[in-house]
């Protein structure tokens, strides 16, 4: 089994599915000969031809809208938005059409497609290249929103996303693209697209997080384990719809919940998780739910980005504060 980075695993998942399903078509800006700005689609055009791997004009609304038309005609588009900060021109297509086509046609026309996009900050990118905008997508019923946190999960979840009968927004944490290498079997095995992953079992506290924030959160748990603190860490992975059963079971077990995410705090996915846990497990809680998140500010230019992204110190303090009450 080969050791690989997340971006290589994503590339491998594309190749597997294109090899096994002739309907899969890749499109986006610079995805062809250039292989994508992060090289996620490198080699695909050479291998599968320029009809199945197409560079689009530079227009995100066009990419999303074109994907809808392709999907309704039975092609399976895997489209790339170059950075999540550029999702805004595509939102009309995503919200007004992609999310609604099945519903508004009573299932006559559907949109099985994947819209991939790099998510979050931490790679010293220019302005508008580091946003965490998952809440924009999760607010629209009719979409699935998925965010992997390791090479193996990226491979398995991307396969699941391509095979899913509905539109899947696939958020790829940029600072995990080449953060680590992991053995990933190229076996075409998809992972469940509607489940959380328990990354670490524990008994004192539940930490719910996703994407790149899993890394610092796991570090914090490891650091505090020396003090006898036992953290359970849940990678939500599927941000819409959310597998609340796994989260609630864990919170009932530990009695404490800390939510860690990179996105700004207000109206974020963490707020939804806190509200749902309050509705269903308030009396199982031993302490108030806490959040360690990006600030409700504009994502700063990169000199300050690690002051914005929740740090190990903030997560450790969040854990201590949740346990102190």
């Amino acid at each position, binding site marked *: 089994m080969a050791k690989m980075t997340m971006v290589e695993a994503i590339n491998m998942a594309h190749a597997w599915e294109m090899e096994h399903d002739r309907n899969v078509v890749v499109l986006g800006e610079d995805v062809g000969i250039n292989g994508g700005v992060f090289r996620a689609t490198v080699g695909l055009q050479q291998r599968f031809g320029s009809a199945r791997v197409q560079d689009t004009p530079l227009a995100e609304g066009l990419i999303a809208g074109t994907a809808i*038309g392709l999907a309704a005609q039975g092609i399976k588009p895997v489209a790339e938005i170059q950075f999540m900060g550029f999702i805004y021109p595509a939102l009309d297509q995503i919200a007004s059409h992609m999310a609604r086509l099945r519903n508004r046609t009573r299932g006559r026309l559907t949109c099985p497609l994947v819209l991939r996009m790099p998510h979050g900050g931490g790679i010293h990118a220019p302005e508008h290249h580091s946003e965490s905008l998952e809440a924009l997508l999760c607010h629209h019923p009719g979409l699935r929103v998925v965010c992997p946190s390791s090479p193996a999960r990226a491979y398995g979840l991307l396969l699941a996303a391509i095979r899913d009968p509905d539109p899947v927004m696939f958020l790829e944490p940029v600072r995990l693209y080449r953060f680590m290498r992991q053995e990933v079997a190229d076996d075409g095995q998809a992972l469940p697209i509607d489940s959380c992953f328990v990354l670490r079992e524990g008994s004192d506290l539940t930490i719910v997080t996703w994407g790149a924030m899993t890394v610092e959160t796991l570090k914090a748990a490891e650091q505090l384990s020396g003090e006898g603190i036992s953290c359970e860490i849940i990678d939500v992975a599927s941000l819409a719809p959310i597998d609340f059963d796994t989260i609630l079971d864990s919170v009932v077990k530990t009695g404490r919940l800390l939510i860690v995410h990179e996105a700004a705090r207000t109206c974020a996915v963490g707020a939804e998780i806190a509200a749902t846990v309050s509705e269903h497990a308030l009396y199982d809680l031993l302490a108030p739910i806490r959040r360690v998140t990006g600030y409700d500010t504009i994502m700063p230019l990169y000199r300050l980005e690690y002051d914005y992204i929740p740090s190990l110190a903030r997560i450790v303090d969040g854990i201590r504060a949740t346990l102190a009450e």
Partner: protein
Amino acid sequence: MSECTTAARFEIHYRACLSPEGQLLGESSRASTDPALLQRMYRMMVRARIFDAKAVNLQRTGKLGTYPSCLGQEATHVGVGAAMRAEDVLFTVYREIGTKLWRGVDMYRILLYWGGDERGTLYEHSPQDFPFCVPIGSQMPQAAGAAMAMKIRGEARCVLVFIGDGGTSQGAFYEAINFAGARELPLVCVIVNNRWAISVPVERQTAAKTLAQKAVAAGVPAVQVDGNDALVVHQVTTEALERARRGGGPTVIETLTYRLADHTTSDDATRYRSAEEVQSAWALEPLLRLRRFLEQRGLWDAQAEEALKRECAVEVEAAVRQYLATPRQATDAMFDYLLAELPPALHSQRDEARRYAALRG
């Protein structure tokens, strides 16, 4: 004075087959020599107009939601429908009743849609056609995508997409025709220039003398036609579809017509345009000229007209009865088509809606 050379030069041709008096203008028209097609087109235009009047009436009497009348644009809508093949795919705005009817959409479905029921988008006879598109211009990239699918598969099918004059102000319009041009997609775009985007006349949308010329920037062939002339609309659309089917790429067709009615039943056009303007537009409306043409050729007479109107009235009444007799969907309908399978997290919301629906009775 510095010397300059011309880098490129463009012209937009205007085409018309039939004068407002119903006389052929010399432009070739395949439909003009096909009596059955002529009669079928005329019948469909009358059918659309009678349906349209009834729909407005239903809204006025509180039996239908907001409805956008197609009055005056029947030649464009029917001419396009007649040029398409069944296996082509249609993307409309929300006013193209004549095209929908031509493609076999039941009047009952159209009423159901504007009567607030998603089942109005179930098109039994054109199952790949998209439903009405309300957000202006947003159908354009989707149409390009459908055309791309046909091209990838090497199919001899085409996509026909409508857009309005106001719609050509949207970025999505340009993005889509630009892409269609760059990839030579089998896409025909019909700009229905009915002069008014709600209250804004086309002169205030753009300084462009024609909307067809917007296609020039995308490198896409374009033509302007008399949109009240069903023969030229049919002719030009047929030519464009044939070219697209042969792999010749997209075409943009601007049809000059007029919105004789308010924008929708919620609008009052007397606030922003003169009665004189509307009056003079009536002199150019599309039904009369085609009827005159048919009559001159002995293909139509007063008796046929009366019989058709009676037939349409019966059909419309039956559709209205069916529509009014259709109970609203159960609340599960909000949840049933959200995703292929309802996520467990939503089961309690579905059950809550059921409980309160039962209380509402």
